[in-house]
């Protein structure tokens, strides 16, 4: 990132005198922009300098300085390193202009920042709470907001460490549970919002006088308990006949307060929590978080650990895509037979994960500067056998039975089309972006770890429909096998950890944004450290959350049954969407 900053450093300052200043805080990079000119600056950045892809928007609460800071990470969709710019606003009246009209991909992310941090985005078309419900008291990620089970600002808590008695936190809470109400609150007098705010934002169907058939508009709620939503996701759909006229994604049903807990945890304690983000691909989540913190610490893992990481990340991609394809076929109506074949292969990969990390799903295997332990003896042999003998054959089998199947083609082709321009504008990532003809893969566009050493192709589709998203996933699995084949042949002997394994790592003050190409797309971690054992800010740029920004565009004008296909082809995991 630094080279690019140098290149444009004077340039940006000259273009926007007195608006843009270089962020000179120790350990920070990028620019500080005055909020009044933020929209002009972002437009210029997008149109003149080519930073057309908004990766992440988040806020940081700098309580001691009484400032709220909004951080934007932008990249070029043609590849290369990115640019970070920030804008500051006073805490008590936090308000910055919305960038939704410059980068539509900011929509859900700005809503999240409003919900959790209370930063108002002026000009946002639909600024409602997104993860919590309307009526919830306070903005939980603010540093002075305390949850009901609050004990101390940072872990390890005294109640659990080191030798004192353990006190159950619910015994201290007056309501004997994870609850907190304002003083003089009378529950009987409370009128819940229901979903009035949500329903009022839905577009109304307007009939012209000459319409030959006038139909009623109906609102259908799909989810949170619906077999096609892959968990507890909810779509509110307005229908005219069977055609979707408007769609709003509703989430937060699995909002597990990852970031609030993450800011109380020490750096290493967050590693097992990252497993539970995208619970289908825990190793990739570990990877991104490890990269972000390693960037701050300035360490690099030894060679063998790098290879182990790549092998594990690619196996994760395989297991995730197998699940994604199986689930998509479930949604298409081929109930459980295709997924049975996909899960059969996934079990082999689960066995490898269990052997290296001790757990099938929640691996918690990566450490800062390496991996937790070396591979057991026979694991490499197992991986080799899978990569060279089994997986390619099995992927071909899936391909043969599914790809040309008439029902799959009929249901998927031309459904949920996203043009390349839209795909970039909505900040979609991973297979969704690549199926729209944008060959953007972080492993190639901005290589991390040792991905520059491997020979592989970036899978691309050009139709932007659900079928191409499916095809991209099939092709990506083949490429993953290729990478694993090269990695198991090149992997050297040696240590797997840089230095001594530490429970309490020392992380210098500063900020870092680490991103990897996870199976669902670009997974980013934004970490701010103040030099203490805990992160000051810990934010996850979740690919399946941001991909949902494009869901309404994909579905509008299509049939209601296609919304299920679109959702399946985005491949969301709710643990990551809601965090």
């Amino acid at each position, binding site marked *: 990132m630094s080279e690019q900053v140098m290149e444009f450093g004077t340039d940006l300052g000259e273009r926007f005198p007195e608006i843009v200043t270089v962020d000179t805080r120790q350990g920070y990079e990028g620019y500080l922009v005055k909020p009044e000119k933020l929209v002009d600056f972002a437009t210029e950045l997008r149109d003149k300098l080519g930073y057309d892809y908004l990766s992440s928007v988040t806020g940081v609460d700098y309580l001691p300085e009484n400032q709220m800071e909004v951080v934007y990470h932008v990249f070029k969709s043609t590849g290369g390193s990115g640019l970070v710019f920030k804008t500051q606003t006073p805490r008590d009246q936090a308000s910055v202009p919305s960038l939704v009209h410059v980068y539509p991909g900011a929509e859900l992310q700005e809503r999240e920042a409003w919900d959790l941090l209370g930063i108002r985005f002026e000009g946002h078309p639909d600024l409602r709470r997104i993860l919590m419900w309307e009526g919830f008291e306070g903005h939980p990620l603010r540093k002075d907001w*305390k949850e009901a089970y609050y004990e101390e600002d940072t872990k390890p808590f005294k109640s659990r460490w080191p030798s004192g008695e353990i006190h159950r936190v619910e015994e201290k809470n*007056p309501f004997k549970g*994870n609850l907190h109400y304002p*003083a003089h*609150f009378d*529950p009987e007098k409370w009128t819940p919002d229901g979903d009035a705010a949500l329903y009022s934002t839905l577009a109304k169907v307007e009939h012209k006088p000459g319409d030959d058939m006038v139909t009623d508009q109906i609102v259908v709620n799909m989810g949170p308990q619906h077999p096609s939503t892959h*968990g507890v996701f909810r779509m509110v759909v307005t229908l005219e006949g069977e055609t979707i006229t408007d769609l709003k994604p509703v989430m937060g049903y699995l909002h*597990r*307060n990852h970031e609030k807990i993450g800011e109380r945890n020490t750096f290493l304690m967050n590693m097992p929590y990252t497993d539970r983000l995208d619970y289908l691909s825990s190793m990739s989540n570990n990877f991104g978080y490890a990269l972000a913190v390693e960037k701050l610490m300035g360490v690099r893992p030894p060679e063998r650990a790098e290879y182990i990481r790549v092998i594990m990340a690619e196996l994760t991609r395989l297991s995730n895509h197998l699940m994604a394809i199986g689930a998509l076929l479930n949604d298409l109506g081929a109930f459980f037979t295709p997924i*049975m074949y996909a899960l059969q292969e996934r079990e082999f990969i689960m066995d490898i994960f269990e052997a290296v990390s001790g757990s099938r799903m929640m691996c918690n295997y990566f450490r800062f500067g390496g991996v937790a332990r070396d591979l057991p003896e026979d694991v490499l042999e197992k991986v080799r056998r899978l990569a060279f003998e089994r997986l390619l054959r099995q992927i071909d089998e899936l391909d043969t039975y599914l790809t040309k199947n008439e029902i799959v083609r009929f249901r998927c082709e031309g459904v949920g089309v996203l043009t390349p321009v839209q795909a970039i504008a909505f900040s979609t990532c991973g297979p969704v972006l690549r199926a729209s003809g944008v060959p953007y893969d972080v492993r190639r566009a901005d290589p991390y770890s040792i991905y520059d050493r491997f020979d592989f192709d970036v899978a691309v589709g050009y139709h932007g429909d659900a079928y191409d998203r499916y095809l991209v996933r099939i092709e990506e699995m083949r490429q993953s096998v290729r990478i694993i084949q090269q990695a198991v042949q090149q992997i050297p002997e040696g240590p797997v950890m840089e230095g001594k394994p530490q429970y309490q790592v020392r992380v210098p003050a500063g900020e870092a944004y680490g991103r990897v190409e996870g199976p669902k797309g670009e997974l980013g971690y934004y970490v701010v450290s103040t030099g203490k054992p805990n992160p000051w800010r810990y934010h996850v740029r979740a690919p399946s959350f941001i991909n949902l920004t494009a869901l309404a565009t994909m579905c509008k004008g299509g049939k209601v049954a296609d919304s299920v296909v679109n959702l399946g082809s985005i491949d969301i995991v709710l643990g990551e969407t809601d965090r």
Partner: protein
Amino acid sequence: MTEGLNSPGVDIPPELQGTVTITTLDRIYNWGRRNSIWPVLMGVACCAIEMICTAASRFDFSRFGMEVMRPSPRQADMLLISGTVTKKMVPQLVRIYNQMAEPRYVVAMGACASGGGPFKEGYNVVSGIDQFLPVDVYIPGCPPTPQALLNGFIALQKKIDKQSIKQVSWYSKGPGEPIPVPVLGPDLMDPREYARIREYTFNPPAPVVEIAGEEA
């Protein structure tokens, strides 16, 4: 199939063994129910993935008569809470439970559903589904392995075996009371607890004052 069905103490002539079974009403009734537990087709969180793995070919819970997963709660016997219960989700879960026909069972799968698990301290997390629903079986693990899940199902079957038509609640007079659906206010509100909430918000006990003092 008829293993365990025969009532002890009654002799069946050798030529009729395998064709005739003499048993009690409770036993044959429970035998039918225990081998056809239909779960609600719903995944809540991470544990749902292990639930799917258990349903797939390697572990295959259809061996226990559970392969028919019903998306409609009206047709299901068991509510498997497969993951973290959040405050935003709990009204829906209670509604689903209320819609299920009796006899119905609740299985809390994993640490989160049993007691909040690693996310317990989170502001949007309910510390265990048993705060709202009567749980029959708790399965430990994060997530429980498919083997552990199967063990939990077998525990539920054993529990069903012990029930008797004479005592079960769903044959008593009158319909069962539905569980009041929690309301989303400034925080989650259980209608059964309104009096207590009011008591504390209007006359906070000493520790609450202390915490409020810290905040100010």
